[in-house]
């Protein structure tokens, strides 16, 4: 991975140095190895704290809504899954494609520091990636973990290793194939009785603290003013204690992004209470696939979408209620 980071840094320097781009969006070093921060670099000097490692899980594409409207061209590093969000944002005219230079970068799956800690490792000071294993040093000792066990939820069920948008590419090693397992959890939920499923979501959504991190990080949630933040909407809400509030918020949000959600998994990555929010979106994706044929949002930046185009053979809403969606 170190060689990928070096190559990326080299390109960022060249692009900024030559004036081809005004800024590069990537990651800068945090306080530790495992907490890099999304950053915009505007000069070669600023690149001194540039970083790319196994903890760069954040999807940077949403930052382009602001950045692509600034003066000058913006270069951005996109992992395969981020490139779907990028295309979707182009399709929705939320970002200005011609102002952007996409550098498609290699991804070997990103790691989750919370999962590392869940393995009983505390006071982590260093993390060293080595192929399929990760060596973790802490104030209480050292341990070696399997990468497989500490991948971000979204990476454990990676949908594709193919970049859907790129102006250039930095891929130095083969990327592992997708396991095609992202609907496994949805199928488990579908197999439950209604009562069981209701209990599952009730328990999960009760944890919600209404911090809105899922919404604010979501590339599909790009409204300038969210209805839940608008006091004039009549449904603005900040309270989280009534059981109904959270369900209303999350289900409305899932409906609103249905057909546009690329399944980037950021909602679940950022949830402080680890609610598996991505499962709501995946259920919609699976149903849309079943009703209107296979469709992956963000695969292209053009073309018709299943929920915004009509054909005579379209399934009626009642079919969904009758369970034909499965």
């Amino acid at each position, binding site marked *: 991975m170190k060689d990928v980071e070096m190559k990326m840094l080299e390109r960022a320097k060249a692009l900024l140095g030559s004036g081809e781009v005004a800024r590069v969006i990537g990651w800068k070093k*945090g*306080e*530790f190895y495992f*907490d*890099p*921060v*999304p*950053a*915009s670099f505007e000069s070669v000097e600023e690149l001194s704290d540039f970083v790319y490692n196994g903890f760069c899980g*954040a999807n940077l594409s949403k*930052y382009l809504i602001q950045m692509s409207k600034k003066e000058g061209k913006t270069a951005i590093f996109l992992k395969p899954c981020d490139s779907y969000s990028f295309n979707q944002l182009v399709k929705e005219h939320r970002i200005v494609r011609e102002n952007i230079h996409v550098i498609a970068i290699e991804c070997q799956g990103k790691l989750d520091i*919370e999962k590392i*800690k869940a393995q009983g490792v*505390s*006071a*982590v*000071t260093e993390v060293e990636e080595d192929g399929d294993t990760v060596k973790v040093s*802490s*104030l*209480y000792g050292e341990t070696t973990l399997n990468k497989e066990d500490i991948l971000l939820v979204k990476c454990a069920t990676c949908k594709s290793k193919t970049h859907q948008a790129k102006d250039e590419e930095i891929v130095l090693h083969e990327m592992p194939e997708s396991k095609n397992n992202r609907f496994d959890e949805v199928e488990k939920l579908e197999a439950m009785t209604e009562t069981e499923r209701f209990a599952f979501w009730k*328990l*999960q959504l*009760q*944890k919600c*603290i*209404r*911090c*809105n*991190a899922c*919404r*604010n*990080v979501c590339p599909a949630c790009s409204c300038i*003013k969210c209805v839940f*933040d*608008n*006091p004039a909407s009549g449904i*603005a809400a*900040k*309270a*989280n*204690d*009534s059981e109904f509030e959270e369900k209303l918020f999350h289900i409305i949000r899932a409906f609103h992004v249905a057909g546009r959600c690329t399944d980037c998994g950021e909602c679940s*990555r*950022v949830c*402080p*209470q*680890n*609610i598996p929010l991505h499962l709501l979106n995946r259920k919609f994706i699976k149903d849309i696939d079943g009703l209107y044929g296979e469709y992956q949002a963000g695969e292209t930046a053009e073309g018709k979408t299943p929920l915004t185009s009509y054909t005579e053979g379209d399934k009626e809403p009642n079919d969904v209620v009758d369970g034909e969606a499965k």
Partner: protein
Amino acid sequence: MLKIAKERLNELYAKIAESMGLFIPIKKAGEVNYHVWGEGKEVSLETLKTVKSPKNAFFPASENLMKFKTEGKNLEIIDVRWDKSEKPFVIFGVKACDYKAIEVLDKVFLADPVDTYYQSRREAFTIVTLACSKPEESCFCNAFGVDATAPKGDVTTWLDEKYLYWQPNTEKGEALTQIVADMAEQGGEAEVAAQQAATQAIMEKLPFASLDLSRFQPENLNELFDDPAWEEMSEACLGCGTCTFVCPTCQCFDIRDFKTHEGVIRYRCWDSCMYSDFTLMAHGNSRTTQMQRFRQRFMHKLVYYPSQNDGLYSCVGCGRCVNKCPQRLNIVKVIKTLGGKDND
């Protein structure tokens, strides 16, 4: 000092719960937060940081304030406040940083004019603290003068492999001790001292142990406010409320009315200075950019609050924001950038 065998802890919880409500860290749907104890609940005292802090017990995320009913031209105001005489409560397992945070909240809610909603909950609670024995990299309570190995509270406890050590500090603490006395035995001073020394040795090695806060002084307010570094520090901020809602000292709330079939309920709920409508007023909003909101949060913790409270910072170094910020921004980065010369 008393000690209670670890295998009798469940018995201890049951004993307390006979006469009092017991809030304790419980694992529910994978996450550990303070919940009301009941038989069969998965207590996790070992969890260093609950996702939400114990402030929830005194300052709930949502709380009904009053109810209105109208009949013709008459408006009836119904008091719906929580009745503290109903049952006393115990909150068990509060860490030193979180206890310090309650002191910070007290200065806000118990200062004149007293917030009676907060006060009634605060008075109904006996606080049992638990010393830390395994701090982690995101902890920096020592930078704010907190001793993680000797928290205050009505009762202080320490936990090791074999025992829970129990030290009452106040009248409320003595009263609670009476309830559990028959399952306790004397002793434990040496074990506690040994654990404290071992933990303190780790505390000194923590990466954020020696943050320099020296520049956060009231006289530097304007200079800090105008520092150009805020732009870059806030660049990646999503404007979500995670940091504020997991923070043990954030105390801002919103008040709203909610129409129900039985009248109008006025409630308050946590609010976040990170939200775009936080300072919305009739004339518009005084903070229009995320940089301004971001700056407000940290200036409040490190400059405004201490300037009004004899230098007491309203950060206690619990490190929840360090762990939970989706984009890995946090107060440590702000302190390192603006705090003083001794931050590397």
